[in-house]
């Protein structure tokens, strides 16, 4: 067996954990140390709030500020939690291009005693943390100023936490799939993460119920785990308000968790095999240390 194969296939929990932990620290440094903490905090807050504000103004213009309507909570919460999708997925897949093309360190990662998938998932942690701050601030802003119907005492916390954890793992697996594909693509196709996130934004009913989509597009939404994840998060936070929308009203919470778990496991298996396959091809073609900056 080749030395490089040992690093990525060895079943070694401490190795995974060490790779993950160090990558998370490295990712955090890259994300945050370009400026002082105050500016970084401002930067982390303005972008997501502005994104949410676009939807708020659009909604306000048409409904004359009827923020108490259930559809507003649906749109606002879906948009807030969707920030995780871009952050986690792009955070993991972007690390491949960043390390290979910008820092030119991916080849060193491959000869270091680390587990590459664990390392890449660790690199996504920084964006997950920044994304979490954005999500919390957006929701708190909505509750305080826009009458989003989230009552901390009425939240179904167990459902919320279980859904959140499964969803984040699912997003990490989707990020790993993109990371595998990124090993085979050139630098200038950096927008692949944005394209997938954009497509999911459209098809997962993040900011509008799936019934609004043309009939022939709805099946795309139903095979996406993000659709079920967002529905569970909404139900856990705003209960019957979320259940009022017909898209998944026939399914109870347990069924939704089952579907989300099943799809997450499926994506996890696909991620595992696809990443290994892409990694193999990348090695065969000498792409691990190739700089495609033309």
């Amino acid at each position, binding site marked *: 067996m080749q030395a490089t194969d040992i690093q990525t296939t060895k079943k070694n929990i401490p190795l995974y954990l060490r790779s993950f932990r160090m990558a998370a620290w490295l990712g955090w440094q890259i994300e945050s140390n370009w400026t002082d903490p105050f500016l970084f905090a401002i930067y982390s807050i303005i972008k997501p709030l*502005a994104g949410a504000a676009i939807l708020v*103004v659009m909604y306000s*213009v048409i409904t004359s500020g009827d923020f108490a309507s259930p559809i507003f909570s649906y749109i606002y919460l879906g948009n807030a939690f969707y920030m995780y999708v871009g952050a986690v997925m792009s955070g993991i897949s972007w690390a491949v291009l960043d390390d290979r093309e910008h820092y030119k360190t991916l080849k060193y990662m491959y000869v270091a005693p680390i587990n590459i998938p664990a390392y890449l998932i660790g690199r996504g942690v920084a964006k997950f943390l920044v994304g979490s701050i954005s999500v919390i601030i957006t929701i708190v802003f909505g509750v305080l100023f826009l009458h989003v119907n989230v009552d901390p005492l009425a939240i179904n916390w167990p459902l919320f936490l279980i859904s959140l954890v499964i969803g984040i793992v699912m997003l990490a697996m989707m990020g790993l799939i993109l990371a595998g594909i990124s090993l085979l693509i050139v630098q200038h196709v950096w927008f692949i993460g944005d394209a997938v996130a954009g497509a999911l*934004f459209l098809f997962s009913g993040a900011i509008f119920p799936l019934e*609004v989509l043309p009939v022939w597009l709805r099946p795309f939404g139903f095979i996406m785990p993000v659709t079920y994840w967002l529905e569970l998060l909404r139900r856990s936070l705003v209960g019957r308000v979320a259940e009022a929308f017909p898209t998944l009203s026939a399914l109870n919470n347990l069924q939704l968790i089952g579907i989300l778990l099943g799809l997450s496991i499926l994506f996890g298996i696909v991620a595992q095999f696809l990443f290994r396959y892409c990694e193999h091809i990348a090695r065969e073609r000498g792409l691990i240390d190739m700089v495609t900056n033309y």
Partner: protein
Amino acid sequence: MSNNPYSTPQVLSHQEGGRPLEVDRLHKNSGWRLYFQTVIARAYPRIIGQQREKSWLFFDILLPLLSVCAYVFVYRAIKAPEDYIGFVVVGGAMTAFWMNVLWSMSSQLYWEKEQGNLALYIMSPTSMMAVLLGMALGGLLATTLRALVIIVLGSLFFHVQYAVVSFVQLFAVFILAMFALYGLGMMAASLYLLLSREAWHISNLAQEPIYLFSGFYFPIKNFSFWISAISSIIPLTLGLDAMRQLVFKTGPSLGFVSVGVEILVLSILSVVFLFGARLMLAYMEKLAIREGRLTENRR
């Protein structure tokens, strides 16, 4: 025989006592000829080179189109009047210009610095203003093609109805908005000469807030007068508002100020930004040279 003046036969002729090497060299342009040659040379990769990479064409159209679709469905979900669907399609197409100015104009000198080209630009006997004008011209033409495709596809998908009041005014608004916008981009590019790793983050930050305050997806009249007035510093704000007034039935009733006033302000902004770009570029170039930032590569 090769036309290359440095090919072997010419070098040999010099060694053999022929005409001096200087006479055999390529003719070199200077003055305004060099200026326009530089503009065309820098515009070339933007127009021709980008079209060669089919994946860029595809994704440059797909990504804004996905956002347009999402916002259109939000309006449909809250039962907005049909003209708002058109507002989103036109606004979505115009995001292509903002993205181009942000990432391919403002940030461009930062990328050139990262790749080591910036020092070569400065060393060359041409004007940096010509380089920036070339980038702007090439970017404008290439992006116009993409924006047109987004408008055509968006209009077809969502059956947008247009009611153009004046094609002349529409053309004038578009041209003035583009002059002012790319002038702003050239000004920003000179600022980016001084930036390092933070350039990427600043460009990234300048997306959603500008989409919000420039009213890419809704009429800016919904903001207070002063917020709309301050937002008008970004040329696309007034450009979009005027275009909506000129192409949609309900546009005039939702406009911020009259089209005539918007054309006047856009004209002023065009002159101010293009003149400002020239001044700032000269100043920033000197500053960057003095502080040794032209070849800086902080990773």
